[in-house]
């Protein structure tokens, strides 16, 4: 079962919830893995404090020119949709614009372009207690976070529960992280910004065919608009975390709030059970829906 944690707005508590569910599952004896897909700013390691056992470089294949073989025909620049190749006397490659599609190499009639790996980040794997831990870390100055997110997700499959901790936003990195999850758990705040970004995220993820449910963080009396949205969209609220300064302070000390506040521990344990039931139920009642067919499709 793959559960993606996403939000639209940043700082709503994705990592707190994702790590909380991971720890709660491990305590219940469930084989669980936590994959940090927020490769621009991975934070799960700060809470889980894993022992990293292996690290692997991830890159894209970028073209390198053999000038002796180049006839200057310009086919490579012509097929490049990213304007990453400019044709002067010979082609000039702008690596930072290259998406690594390999089109130029296929198009070159004389074999003057070969491909070389350009590192964009690393995938690190290890253990945090009984939680299998994986994170991606994008190199500073690199742009193609979705490539690294896909590489992180390809390491999945070592547990009955896979938690994908996603990046904020609703564009390509967020979609790359939540794609093919059985359930997308949205963590939302009951503020105007929180609601607006939740609407954007729900719209972006709706077409992916996964089921969605909600955690409301910093929940207080100001939630009627958020509740109305959930009702309209058929989004079930699986957990509410109160707006409590003690939680913010625990976070500022780098503590996993679930370990500090007993009421939160119970809440997350309930959330873990609810996640399991939710996926069971929705699969049982809708075996022909996209979720069931997509689950085995890989990252």
């Amino acid at each position: 079962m793959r559960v993606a944690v996403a939000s639209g707005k940043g700082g709503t508590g994705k990592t707190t919830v994702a790590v909380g569910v991971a720890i709660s599952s491990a305590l219940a004896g469930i084989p669980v893995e936590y994959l940090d897909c927020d490769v621009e700013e991975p934070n799960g390691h700060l809470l889980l404090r894993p022992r990293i056992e292996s690290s692997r470089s991830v890159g894209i294949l970028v073209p390198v020119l053999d000038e002796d073989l180049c006839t200057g025909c310009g086919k490579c620049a012509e097929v490049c949709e990213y304007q990453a190749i400019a044709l002067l006397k010979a082609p000039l490659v702008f690596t930072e614009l290259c998406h690594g599609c390999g089109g130029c190499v296929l198009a070159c009639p004389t074999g003057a372009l070969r491909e070389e790996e350009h590192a964009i980040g690393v995938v690190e794997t290890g253990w945090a207690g009984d939680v299998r831990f994986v994170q991606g870390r994008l190199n500073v100055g690199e742009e193609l976070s979705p490539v690294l997110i896909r590489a992180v997700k390809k390491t999945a499959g070592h547990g009955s529960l896979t938690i994908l901790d996603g990046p904020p936003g609703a564009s390509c990195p967020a979609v790359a992280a939540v794609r093919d999850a059985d359930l997308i758990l949205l963590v939302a705040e009951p503020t105007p910004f929180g609601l607006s970004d939740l609407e954007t995220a729900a719209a972006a993820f709706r077409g992916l065919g996964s089921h969605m449910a909600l955690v409301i963080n910093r929940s207080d009396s100001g939630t009627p608009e958020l509740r109305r949205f959930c009702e309209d969209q058929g989004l079930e609220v699986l957990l509410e975390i109160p707006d409590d300064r003690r939680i913010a302070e625990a976070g500022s000390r780098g503590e996993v709030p679930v370990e500090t506040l007993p009421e939160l521990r119970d809440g997350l344990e309930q959330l873990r059970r609810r996640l399991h039931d939710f996926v069971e139920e929705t699969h049982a009642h809708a075996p022909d829906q996209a979720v069931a067919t997509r689950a085995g499709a890989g990252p």
Partner: protein
Amino acid sequence: MKELAVISGKGGTGKTSIVASFAALAGDVVLADCDVDAADLHLVTDPHTQRRETFRCGHQALVRASDCISCGLCEERCRFDAVSRDESGAFAVDPAACEGCGVCVWSCSAEAIDFPERTSGEWFVSRTRHGPMVHARLSPGAENSGKLVSLVREQARQVADRDGRDLILIDGPPGIGCPVIASISGASLVLAITEPTPSARHDLARALDLAEHFGLPSAVAVNKFDLNSALSEEIESDVRERGASTVGRIAYGRAFTAAQRRGASVVETGDGRIAEQVRRVWRNVGRLLEAASPPYER
């Protein structure tokens, strides 16, 4: 003309609330909301839209199932895992995964793949009580947020030229990836908003590394500082050690959320302690901006 880019690394540290306050305090600015995939600045600036344009960028591969001969070359050559076979044996492209490289289009032996231009969102020029604002909405799940950010900034510069305004306030996205790079490149000053948590401290370091990577001067304000004053001090000392400036602290409280619910910034809705702290941060930022060279002179 100068540009102040406000970023954070970690999301939810208060970028948008602080940019809205700066706009109210500066009075004579152009606003550029560059968090195009989770734009919120319009919620506290009450914009009246004067110009609305479609953002078209890149292409999207589409297999015509009726013409597909199921040779599988598209799937084999796609580096983005965007092509897969459906139950009928025909191939189809997942629009969410397609990066618009076109390799499948010209590889297809049956010429069965169309390559229409992709509509990726909208952008707007609006009037607000603080001045003109350029903002955008990326289509849900769309690519090319970096290109839309660059477009928003270019339009903001044109508006600033047109109206003779000297400062562009850029509300940036979280992270350090392509839309962040597009938001800060060439800016006069990068202001990072952080908070005293290990996560925000970690993310701030990467955000400042990014500014340094592009040779941009940076400054840091610590929001919610009193959640952990000791950590706030450590963060500020890290910042100064690496040659960036510290421009002040803002306390933890509900004033920002209360202002948001009223559709305004914290400096417009109250004269409390938090509003005063934001004013002080703005004065310090103003001094740094005065000293910063315009982008074209650097």
